[in-house]
């Protein structure tokens, strides 16, 4: 058996003695297994107190050293009283009705606390998986795929290198890098201060950066943010169309050309097309 420190044993014996109305020595002996444990039924105890006869009110005293075989007898005796007790006093002497008997009351109601946690959880628990291997493995594979794609692309397609730079010979047309060609195309329609500065700076930089502060809709379900998606798709289509026109459909003098008739007037693409 586990060795329980003496002071702890004593403390629990005191508690037990107080609860059962027996002496501490008795409780201690019971806990050490030296005498039979005291068996007490809660029911008869409370009922006994309620009994109108003063003689019976002394009942707690004999409880002190009940034997195991005594318990059922004691429990049986007050049983009929239980049914009878509450009714008669109520009928003739209502002031004697003791709803809260003073004996053996070990608790009372202080307040009613609502059933909610003291600390509020910041977020709902989410379904998570280990980064290794569930994220890092796909990452590694896609990284390798990208590397393979880039090496194969670089082995097949030669990057363009035209004649040496010469400020005195202006090519016609002179085209910007492909990601600026949509802008260059827009420049041919509108005033350069609008197309060349307002669009990239105001719409491009400031407008895009401000998107989360303009769009205050909290939903991220596509069906609940149709307007935002429509606007972005509109921008995407516009920018894409302008870029494709700028790359493929603009020839000398920035005139309209068809790539399948007049060829491609974009040197960055030349070697893609004519590479042997």
């Amino acid at each position, binding site marked *: 058996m586990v060795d329980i420190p003496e002071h702890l044993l004593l403390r629990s014996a005191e508690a037990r003695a107080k609860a059962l109305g027996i002496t501490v020595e008795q409780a201690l002996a019971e806990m050490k297994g030296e005498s039979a444990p005291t068996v007490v039924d809660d029911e008869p105890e409370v009922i006994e107190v309620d009994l109108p006869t003063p003689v019976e009110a002394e009942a707690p005293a004999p409880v002190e050293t009940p034997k195991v075989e005594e318990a059922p007898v004691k429990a049986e005796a007050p049983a009929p009283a239980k049914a009878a007790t509450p009714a008669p006093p109520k009928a003739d002497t209502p002031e004697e009705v003791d709803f809260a008997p003073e004996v053996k009351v070990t608790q009372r109601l202080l307040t009613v606390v609502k059933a909610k946690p003291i600390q509020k959880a910041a977020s709902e628990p989410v379904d*998570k998986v*280990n980064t*290794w291997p569930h994220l890092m493995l796909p990452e590694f594979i896609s990284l390798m795929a990208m590397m393979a794609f880039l090496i194969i692309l670089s082995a097949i397609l*030669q990057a363009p290198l035209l004649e040496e730079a010469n400020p005195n010979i202006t090519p016609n047309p002179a085209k*910007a890098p492909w990601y600026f060609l949509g802008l260059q195309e827009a420049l041919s329609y509108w005033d*350069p201060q609008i197309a060349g500065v307002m669009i*990239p700076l105001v719409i491009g930089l400031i407008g895009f*950066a401000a998107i989360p502060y303009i769009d205050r809709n909290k939903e*991220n379900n596509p069906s609940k943010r149709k307007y935002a998606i429509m606007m972005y798709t509109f921008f995407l289509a516009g920018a894409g169309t302008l870029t494709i026109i700028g790359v493929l459909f603009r020839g000398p003098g920035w005139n309209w050309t068809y790539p399948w008739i007049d060829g491609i007037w974009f040197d960055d693409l030349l070697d893609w097309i004519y590479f042997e």
Partner: protein
Amino acid sequence: MAKLTLKERFKKVSAGSGDGARASKFATSIFRPGSPFRKGYSDSPRNRSYVVMNNVLYHLHPVKVKRHGVRLSYTLCLGGMSFFLFIVLTITGIWLMFYFRPTEMAYADIQALQTSVAFGSLVRNMHRWGAHLMVLVVFLHMSRVFYHGAYKAPREFNWVIGVILLFLTLFLSFTGYLLPWDQLAIWAVTVGGNMASYTPVFGAQIKFGLFAGLEATTATLLRFYVLHVLFFPFIIVIFMAIHFWRVRKDGGISGPL
């Protein structure tokens, strides 16, 4: 001791019972106490955590991620691809710097690189196509984030950082465009510089500052070179660090939809 087959050796080492090199002072000075490189790896939830925790990758990835975020169809790995392409471009770019002078010799250097340097042409191609690819992938990443509504609270500011990163990527690509010093480069940059000169009030000054003169010369080449290999990479690395840090601080991957 009986001679072990390769398979047995591997089993022994991967079970962590190997001694020798991995238990040496040198190895233990490199790998942290919980590292699988030090104590072997057998598959268990605990070891799965240790792989990330005892690794520099812990700066990028948490130990656990949301299950839906792992699906390739959610992120398409575009952000990771942008970062990976940046690393590839840095490595190939440093390699190219060995063979390149941003002077009137630039064009000859590129020709020499393509004709007389081992793998010179391949590495130059990788750098160029990788750069175009990075512009594309960064843009697609932005579109993916928009369509998922991933810029919404609490990720508003990280979107702003992302827009700055997109523009820095464009500047990096644009400044690199001039460096081959051929007709394509000089006239594309001239067109781009002319667009900048339409800026109200400061237009002429911006163009002058960008070109180091009134038109694209070798002075412009040097300026673009420094911007391309030092200035913009320096700036973009800072913003990338903030971007990655915010991804985790804002609660990891967004969603699910």
